[in-house]
């Protein structure tokens, strides 16, 4: 029976490790439930545009979110971060409204799906260009330093193996290192960037080998193992919080979906699916929590039921809300009212 790793650093304030682990797992359950629903809605033709989900990566994503506090820390969620968003505190309605085109969504229908955010609560809204959000998080942190309120704050940025090839990622990592900002970059190597396997993306043994080149601590972890992942990400976040500067965590997993729900991912080799990296982190986590008694079968069933209900309600709510109306929209592109139309 596996022993759960315990690490006092992992706890935020007074929270116990067990409590954080449960909280993290619960976000995973919610995210998996929500994303399965989004996928069904997509396949039923109820969603315009793409649907991008993160099965297989929830342990990594939720661990980031659960180490951060809403309205205090910063989290740049990327393509596959429903679990992290949930754990961080994003209201589920933000997701369903964005996907289903409700005008009440955080971008009022101007942008959709994963491109949502609430910058004022510490959740910047991603642009599609990969790598581009890392420097934005660095800038948010730098601002707090200048304002004198950086103490105890961490900014996390999620990126993928593919994003690590962008110049934007590189410039941001290096800049954050020079400024010694409390930035935690969690790089999920899910073995593919769309269809591109890692051997066409990079030539180093592991992307964690990039850390030394930026002069920052590097961590590598089996991202299918919730307990190990949460421990490592907690440690990196604590180190950043305590003044250790930027941290690079590389977490390995397999994307258990297509790139988007339009993609059947038939290019993923069978042996990879059957290898350890292809394990489903949900199953691993369930086993970990059940076998250590951190959760009971009944409680798990209850969580799943509650998640299903919450998802159902959030979908129903978004679906009954009006779509944006081009005649009612102000089409304002400038924040400054003194700028006349051009």
């Amino acid at each position: 029976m596996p022993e759960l790793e315990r690490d006092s650093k992992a706890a935020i304030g007074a929270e116990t490790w067990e409590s954080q682990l449960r909280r993290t797992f619960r976000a995973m359950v919610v995210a998996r439930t929500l994303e399965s629903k989004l996928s069904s809605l997509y396949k039923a033709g109820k969603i315009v545009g793409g649907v991008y989900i993160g099965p297989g990566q929830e342990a990594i994503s939720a661990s980031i979110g659960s180490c951060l506090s809403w309205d205090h820390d910063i989290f740049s969620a990327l393509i596959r971060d429903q679990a992290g968003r949930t754990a961080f505190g994003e209201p589920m309605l933000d997701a369903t409204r964005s996907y289903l085109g409700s005008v009440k969504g955080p971008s009022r229908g101007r942008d959709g799906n994963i491109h949502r955010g609430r910058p004022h609560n510490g959740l910047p809204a991603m642009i599609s260009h990969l790598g581009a959000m890392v420097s934005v998080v660095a800038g948010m942190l730098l601002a707090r330093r200048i304002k004198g309120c950086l103490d105890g704050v961490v900014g996390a940025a999620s990126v993928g193996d593919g994003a690590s090839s962008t110049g934007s990622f590189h410039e941001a990592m290096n800049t954050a290192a020079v400024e010694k900002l409390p930035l935690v970059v969690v790089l999920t190597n899910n073995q593919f960037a769309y269809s591109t396997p890692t051997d066409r993306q990079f030539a180093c043994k592991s992307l964690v080998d990039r850390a030394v080149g930026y002069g920052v601590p590097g961590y590598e972890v089996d991202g299918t193992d919730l307990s190990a992942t949460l421990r490592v990400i907690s440690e990196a976040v604590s180190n950043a919080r305590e003044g250790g500067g930027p941290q690079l965590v590389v977490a390995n997993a397999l994307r258990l979906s297509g790139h988007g729900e339009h993609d059947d991912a038939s290019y993923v080799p069978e042996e990879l699916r059957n290898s350890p990296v292809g394990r489903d982190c949900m199953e691993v986590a369930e086993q970990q929590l059940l076998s250590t008694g951190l959760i009971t079968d009944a409680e798990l069933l209850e969580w799943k039921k509650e998640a299903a209900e919450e998802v159902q309600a959030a979908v129903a709510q978004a679906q009954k809300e009006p779509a944006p109306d081009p005649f009612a929209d102000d089409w304002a592109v400038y924040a400054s009212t003194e700028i006349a139309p051009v």
Partner: protein
Amino acid sequence: MGEITYIDAIREAQHDLLSSDERVFIYGQDVGDFGGAFKATQGLKKLFPDRVLDSPISEDAMIGLAVGAALEGMRPIIEMQFADFSSVGFNQIVNQAATQFYRTGVPSPITVRLPSGGTPGSGPFHSQMMESVYAYYPGLVILTPATVADAYSMLIESVALDDPVLYLEHKFLYRWLKADQLKDGKDPLPIGHARVVRAGKHATVVAYSAMVHEALRAADLLALEGWEIEVVDLRSVKPLDTDTVIASVARTGRLLAVGEAFPWGGVTAEVVSRVTSDGFHLLDAPPQRLNSRDTPVPYHPNLWEAHRPTLESIAAAIRNLLQL
């Protein structure tokens, strides 16, 4: 309408280029076994394993690499996954590729394929038209095919040209636009020539890329009202065929320039300025422009339909023009 789509034409052109010219290779994200995000390179890796290469997500390096290969005599085709992401390779396009021949006398014949324009639900970063930012820079050729036959022949010509070409393929046309044949029987027009796609006498609508089809539909609608609208497909945004446009305005006396681009500057401003500078006396009414709105391209289809010019808004603009 037949069975050959616009995206088929792009794939076939690349197939034919790879077959007939050993200098050609394709480089881009997921263009290999996967066949590209839009399947424009489907099956090509199997046929030409050494000349269809998957790239990392590195648009800057992709263009730099293409220029280097071109200096060595190759004819690279770079696929951007979406035109919008070429913003990351912008510097290498406008400063490395575009200036190369002027500075060194050595050509850098690269073709950059830009899947462009809006489709429902694509949002601010998967919908952009970038022809005008590239056309601004000296040394670049900017092509905007609007038909299946042009998609084919202009891609062949892009690769044949000794200069860097940005080939804007419109995503909305990929599977919607069909033809019976890949080549329309006629000799393809030379690079830089516009085409009168519908003859008329009351007004000229100048359009390019997907907007040609919206303009044609608007002309159909106006025909029911008794107006004969001439539609000119620019085909090439740079060089821009002022002569064909002015000849059309000479026939009609009225000009509406339509583009899917943002409204500041761009093709419609260039067209209107050229016509008024060189063909002022031909105009019976002030020339008009119709572009997208001055906001990012919105995600929601309701907003998107109201953001770009459509059959209805073009028809309204023509009616207005006819009354000026």
